[in-house]
């Protein structure tokens, strides 16, 4: 086996399966299993990773995205060698630091100080190394006043911060991060991202699992999208995210369907000046052709999003549905979004009782052509891109 530089991760045709009846560790279940094997019957397996390939060079940053249960966390566990693959090869070179649901390593009975030493050694630091970092860890976790208190008296936020802080100060060659940003307040999240980018800047390889696509975009050069245990797309982060968002969109459209008899969206169109394509900063027109239950008096909400449900902006309009088709137009003076693909969402809420006539659902997409926004520095999240007509001067 050729040795590679520290920080390299090689995942080759990795497959992973679990028993379909996972967790059945009772004696009778085991006996049945042994019996089946003796009779030569097939075991019941569920594949949770199918033919996954990933090669990461030292210092690269790779994001893993996909819905829950798609196998991202399993892949990270295999890379961290906490779990073994069923088939294929998984090699890593150098020290691995894992930020996987960091509260797991924290013991509530011990004080913050003891936890730093305990968890630190479990993660592979020597006592001296921990002592060197102790102050930094405490300061980062913002628990200096409570460091000698038992962790069970910490708030959940403090516990998470402490766990993250310990794990974030290992000098690992490969850093695995699994959904740690889902916890903690916005400030601390930003701090975590900052810390991760510092670690990355020092040459550490990063593998990053998150549902926060903005975070993935901010942190990672490349991304891999897993779906139903398989790799669906891999490559430059933006391109993969675009694929992912589109698929989610399709899925949402299929799931919510506007065909429940309440409201139908017959046509959507977004145009720019002179009925051409929409352009950032210029006037735009959203045209919707609808048909719904006659006489309904309702608010029509129209939103524009870049990906899943969260819109960049929403506008509202009071309508009274006539019989048959009708058209509504929304005029926007300066379209505040830069170049890219966007999705149109719609919802209709009855004015009488506040009940939804139509739930929040995607109804179409459109592309904006023209200027692009500047890329933010690494590790900084852009919530959603907004077009700002800015000019610079310096003297």
């Amino acid at each position, binding site marked *: 086996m050729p040795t590679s530089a520290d920080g390299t991760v090689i995942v080759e045709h990795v497959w992973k399966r679990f028993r379909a009846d996972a967790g059945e560790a009772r004696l009778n279940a085991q006996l049945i299993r042994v019996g089946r094997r003796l009779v030569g019957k097939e075991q019941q397996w569920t594949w949770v990773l199918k033919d996954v390939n990933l090669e990461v060079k030292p210092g690269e*940053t790779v994001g893993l995205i996909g819905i829950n249960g798609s196998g991202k966390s399993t892949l990270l566990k295999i890379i961290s060698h906490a779990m073994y693959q069923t088939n294929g090869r998984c090699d890593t070179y150098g020290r691995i630091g894992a930020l996987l649901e960091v509260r797991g390593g924290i013991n509530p009975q011990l004080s913050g100080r003891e936890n730093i030493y*305990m968890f630190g*050694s479990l993660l592979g630091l020597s006592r001296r190394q921990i002592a060197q970092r102790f102050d930094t860890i405490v300061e980062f976790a913002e628990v200096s006043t409570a460091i000698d208190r*038992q962790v069970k008296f910490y708030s959940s936020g403090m516990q998470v911060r402490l766990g993250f802080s310990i794990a974030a100060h290992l000098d690992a060659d490969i850093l695995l991060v699994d959904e740690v940003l889902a916890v903690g307040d916005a400030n601390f999240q930003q701090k975590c991202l900052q810390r991760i980018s510092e670690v990355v800047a020092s040459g550490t390889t990063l593998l990053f699992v998150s549902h926060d696509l903005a975070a993935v975009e901010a942190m990672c050069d490349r991304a891999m999208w897993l779906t139903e245990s398989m790799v669906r797309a891999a*490559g430059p982060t933006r391109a993969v995210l675009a694929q992912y968002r589109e698929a989610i969109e399709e899925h949402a459209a299929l799931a919510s369907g506007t065909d429940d008899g309440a409201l139908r969206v017959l046509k959507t169109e977004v145009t720019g000046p002179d009925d051409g394509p929409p352009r950032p900063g210029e006037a735009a027109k959203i045209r919707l052709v609808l048909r719904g239950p006659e006489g309904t008096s309702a608010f029509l909400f129209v939103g524009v999003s870049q990906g899943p449900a969260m819109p960049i902006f929403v506008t509202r309009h009071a309508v009274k549905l006539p019989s048959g088709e009708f058209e509504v137009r929304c005029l926007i003076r300066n379209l505040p979004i830069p170049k*890219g693909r966007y999705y149109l969402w719609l919802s209709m809420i009855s004015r009488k009782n506040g009940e939804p006539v139509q739930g929040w659902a995607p109804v179409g997409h459109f592309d904006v052509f023209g200027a692009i926004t500047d890329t933010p520095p690494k590790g900084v999240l852009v919530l959603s891109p907004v077009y700002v007509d800015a000019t610079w001067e310096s003297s």
Partner: protein
Amino acid sequence: MTGAAPGGLATPVPCTGGWGVATDTGGVSRPDDDGGLLLVDPDTVPDEPPADAYYRHRVPLLLAISHMWQRKEIIWALAERDVRVSYKQATLGMAWGIINPVIQVLLFTLIFGHVKSLKIPGVPYAIYAFTGVICWSYFAGSFGAGSSAVIGNLNLLQKTHFPRECFPLSQMLEQTLYTTIGLIPLTILLVAKGFAPHAEILWAPVFIAIELLFTAGMVLAAASIIVYVRDLGQITALIIQIGLFATPVIWPLSKLANISIGPLHHWDLRPYYSFINPLGPVVDNVRRTMLLGQNPDWPLLGIAAVSASLYFVFGYLIFKRLEVGFADIS
């Protein structure tokens, strides 16, 4: 940082489905945004992996031991964590390390202290019982706590990657502390009775080594099997109870020297017994040397040493073999 060749991320798979074309919908572009997107058609992924590439988890014993030894600080940290936690939860803390053996010895002395056939001339029964209890309770404590060390730490196990045997071995280390504390009341008892241990007890390292090997083997095997068969957790408690009486704690090993069953007359059962339960000769030799000042019974100790080594090797191998699925069970 972005020195990766485009497409280096995954092995190219021919695209035949609706994902064939890389679309540029990302909008804002980055320098590396212009290519390298690889799309995989789910239909091209086979249902089963190739049969020749199944991962086989085979770790040579010596390699495993050397890996474990490199991470011995982890064993220490885990043991320290558990000691600190139990110390905080129990008001008497470490004192339990003294109270437990003392009560056991008191009970045995009250019940068996007057049984003539168990008496050894010149040795107070309390001291006799105490030596047995110390040897036995190290095994019992390690086995009881160590066998559940893996299932008790599944959460941590899924987040770390140090050798898994650190979990049960840390329990043995913790037990070492309690056993050492248990030597305090024994010392007090020796002083109170005015009984001076004989110099032959300096052979103790041999006895300790045998006990450690045997205990480690049993603990490793139990800790790994219990992950898959939880019912065994109940059986370990049973084994400890039975073992207390099946090991020469309250009776001398010499009782087995002359057994007559059916056609067998004056049969020396001790070699066979020593092979199955190496703790027997350990307890016996602690008493021979320390209490009676005799030399160790080398033939029986030899059998025990071989047996304990086998327990250790097989226990370790079972553990390494089964550890592959630990993280799958949660």
